[in-house]
């Protein structure tokens, strides 16, 4: 019986189907909002679903210089890691799989899709992919620093209260902390950390101002240049699921609380909140700024978000 529940969790509810659908709709919403901000009508909300299925129908070409197995398995590995992460993120008290330490596992499982993209790009053997990979790596290095500081800050803040001083890495403890003391965003010490995380979401998802790795114009979609057909569809799906996971992670870390107790209402609330976060962080930045250069991304992320995160870490540290 447990296996059945496990299977359901993996394949349907927080796993593949649910996060894929919500992810695609969220990225559709993002494209629509960006269009509306540029006074355009913009594609229908389910446009990414159309894109996904059209790509499924296209022919998949494997170039001669590519090493075939890595080339074809990279997107699947990325998808696996993303679905595994989606099992971790609690939705207001309900968590599909909750081991004690979630933040570090999430942090690392979220690097697997990025590494899968890199391996896929490397395996395709194209020079554009080579450049795209080194840019993707620079992006990872630049956002890993502030992201880690933010997670440690939250762990420290919750740990001090619940875990008798030692840091906690478990998301369920963070949710129960917010259930008692109100959402984390209301705690003034953590507002800089929230701002930092808001800035990290676009680069983690790879949306326009920071998508130096998949720049359509400079390096023809970077690592994805040789992909067509089903593998490309899975990569676009990864992109959408990552958007959903990062925003719902933000909601869990900063905006969650008791929730209404009924699962369905909680889920809708979580989706609405992550939709708001998508609009705030990803769409506005995408609509008003142009793409940064490679070294500007590194300089930007090692100054502003890191300073914000360090500020809140110090505040939390002092405010023991």
């Amino acid at each position: 019986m447990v296996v059945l529940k496990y299977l359901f969790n993996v394949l349907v509810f927080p796993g593949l189907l649910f996060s894929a659908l919500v992810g695609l709709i969220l990225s559709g919403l993002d494209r629509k909002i960006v269009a509306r901000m540029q006074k355009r009508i913009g594609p229908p909300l389910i446009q990414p679903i159309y894109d996904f299925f059209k790509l499924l129908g296209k022919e998949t070409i494997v170039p001669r210089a590519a090493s075939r197995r890595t080339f074809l398995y990279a997107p699947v590995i990325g998808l696996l890691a993303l679905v595994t992460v989606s099992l971790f993120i609690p939705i207001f008290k309900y968590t599909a799989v909750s081991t004690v330490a979630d933040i570090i596992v999430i942090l690392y499982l979220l690097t697997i899709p990025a590494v899968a993209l890199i391996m896929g790009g490397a395996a395709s053997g194209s020079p554009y992919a080579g450049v795209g990979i080194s840019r993707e790596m620079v992006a990872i290095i630049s956002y890993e620093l502030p992201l880690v500081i933010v997670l440690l800050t939250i762990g420290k803040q919750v740990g001090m209260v619940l875990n008798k001083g030692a840091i906690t890495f478990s998301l369920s403890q963070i949710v129960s902390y917010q259930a008692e003391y109100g959402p984390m965003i209301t705690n003034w010490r953590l507002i800089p950390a929230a701002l930092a995380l808001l800035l990290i979401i676009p680069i983690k998802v790879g949306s326009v101002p920071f998508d130096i790795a998949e720049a359509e114009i400079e390096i023809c979609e970077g690592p994805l240049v040789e992909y067509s057909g089903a593998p490309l569809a899975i990569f676009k799906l990864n992109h959408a699921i990552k958007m959903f996971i990062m925003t719902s992670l933000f909601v869990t870390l900063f905006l969650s609380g008791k929730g209404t107790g009924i699962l369905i209402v909680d889920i809708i609330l979580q989706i609405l909140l992550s939709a708001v976060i998508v609009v705030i962080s990803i769409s506005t930045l995408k609509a008003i700024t142009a793409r940064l250069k490679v070294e500007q991304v590194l300089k930007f992320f090692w100054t502003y978000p890191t300073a914000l995160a360090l500020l809140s870490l110090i505040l939390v540290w002092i405010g023991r």
Partner: protein
Amino acid sequence: MQHFPILSIVTLFLGAFLTVIFGSKNETVRKFIALIASSISLILVLMLIKPIMIEGNIIQYWLGNWRPIHDWAIGIGLEVDALGLFFGIIAVLTIFLSVVFSFKYTKKDSETDKYYVLFLMLSGAVLGLVFTGDLFNMFVMIEIMTFAAVGLTAFRNYQEGALEAAFKYLVLGSIGSSMVLAGTITIYSQVHTLNMAQISALLFNNLTPAALFAFALLLAGFSLKAFVVPFHPAAPDAYMSAPSSVSMAFSGMVNKAGVYAIIRLVYVLFHAMDFKSIQILLIIIGTITMFIGVTMALAQNDFKRLLAFHSISQIGYVITAVGVSTALGLTAGLYHALNHTLFKGLLFLTAGAIFYATGTTDLNKLGGLAKKMPQTAAIFLIGAFSISGLPPFNGFVSKWLVYQATFEANMAPVTIVALLVSVMTLASFIKVAQSIFFGQMPKEFENVKEVPLSMRIPMWIMAILCVITGILPNVVTKYLVSPAVSAALNMGKYIDLMMGSGYAEKILGKPIEIPNIDFTLAGYWNPVAWLVLFGLLLIAITLVAVAGGFNTVSLPTEVDDPKYDVFFSGEASEHSHVKGNDLFWGLKHDLRHYFGFMHDAHSGIINDYALWAIFTTTIFIVYIFLLVP
């Protein structure tokens, strides 16, 4: 069972001498002797695991049966406790795999009998150092190890830079050994004995200034052997020019021996870990080593030199974890030492395989080898993912323990640096993967073939070990790491055994409390669950793919149809490989001042390095005198 330790050391030395006598003429005898020697010592050490690790007693052996006479140790004693055996297992495993790898690897070299003599001497010395219970004997083993290593570095003297690297290693190595010798002498003048157990008993909490001076010297000497940052410049040249099977032994055993000596020195000999200042000293050294090691690695253009800098940065991880000195910290350090030997050895073997197949390890000349050498590419990927700490592999578990240990000892900046270094490790291995295995294949590597089976077996063994230690962390910790940690932390048992029971209480005055090793691992994720999950999802995805009726994947036909060429804006794509130097332009441009300074600091002139070594030793001495008492 009493004689296993001494037997395993002696078989290796005996193997060395036999190779000199019989091996010089024909090839197979020499290889046979080396194989027999290494496998005997492997079996002996593995049989030691049950008594020491599981039942937890300590084996002692007095050379020449010179037992201590009324509480005064005269003879040389071998004392193998769980900590010593832990590093012994690492060393013996590396020796055996390196010997098997070197059979085919040194086929092209001439005079390989000298290679096996030096190699067996090196392995015997490392094993001796790890099992000995006597300080001067440890110095002797360090001497043998250094000179065997210098000889092996210059083994391929036709390679440019090999002799120079050997000379640098010789100079720095002898500085280190002389510091260790000076330290041993000062201690001897203080306590008139050389047996480590008795020294630790006598020095328990009457640290006279002379003992402090000796402590500083020994610490500097051993950290030079472990190639910690201020002393590290000799390592990259040595690793680069030595044959890969030897540089695998270097990074697997030699710097681990240095780390073992530091742990023994700091935890047992001087029991100095109670002083906060020593912890901070070790953590500072470790963090600097981590950061400088990885940033230098990012800027390298040669695969083996890049791996050498990574060994230095991973040793930095181990030293930081050891410096945290909580039970969790030591577990993290030891576990990472084991993992480092596995994945670093694996990566050096892949470097050897590439050198064997293509003749060069220069990142700017290679490319697209994954198609010609698929197994080596797969093995390399396992090694690269384990060193950068991705979940299913072993790097993840031990790095996680390091982050948790450092953060719980509220050293937040250290954890942040550690995580950043781990990401940069991933970056440099992506650079290597892209420049060597993927991308366009230069014309001259058309007829590159996969390496012979006898070289691939050790690589596969190590890859499988990498995955096992990644999947079953609690098994590895329960049987291997925790006994070693408890052995390091309670020295009472260590002393009593050597000097007869009750000796410790009489001297120390109070029984040493044995700290409990029941740290609550903040959420030890059970990786087996993930693998079930990954497998389940993989089946689900393939099911959807098959049922979804995706159209056939069109594979490249032999005919020269541009459809399967790589899209390079329509250009023909021969010389379009993005490799080595062109990657990470953004990072290098941003940190160009830092890289510039690093470039000048590693000037390559031996007197600079010697100056660095002496300068850091003085800092150690001043630091310890100011802060410890």
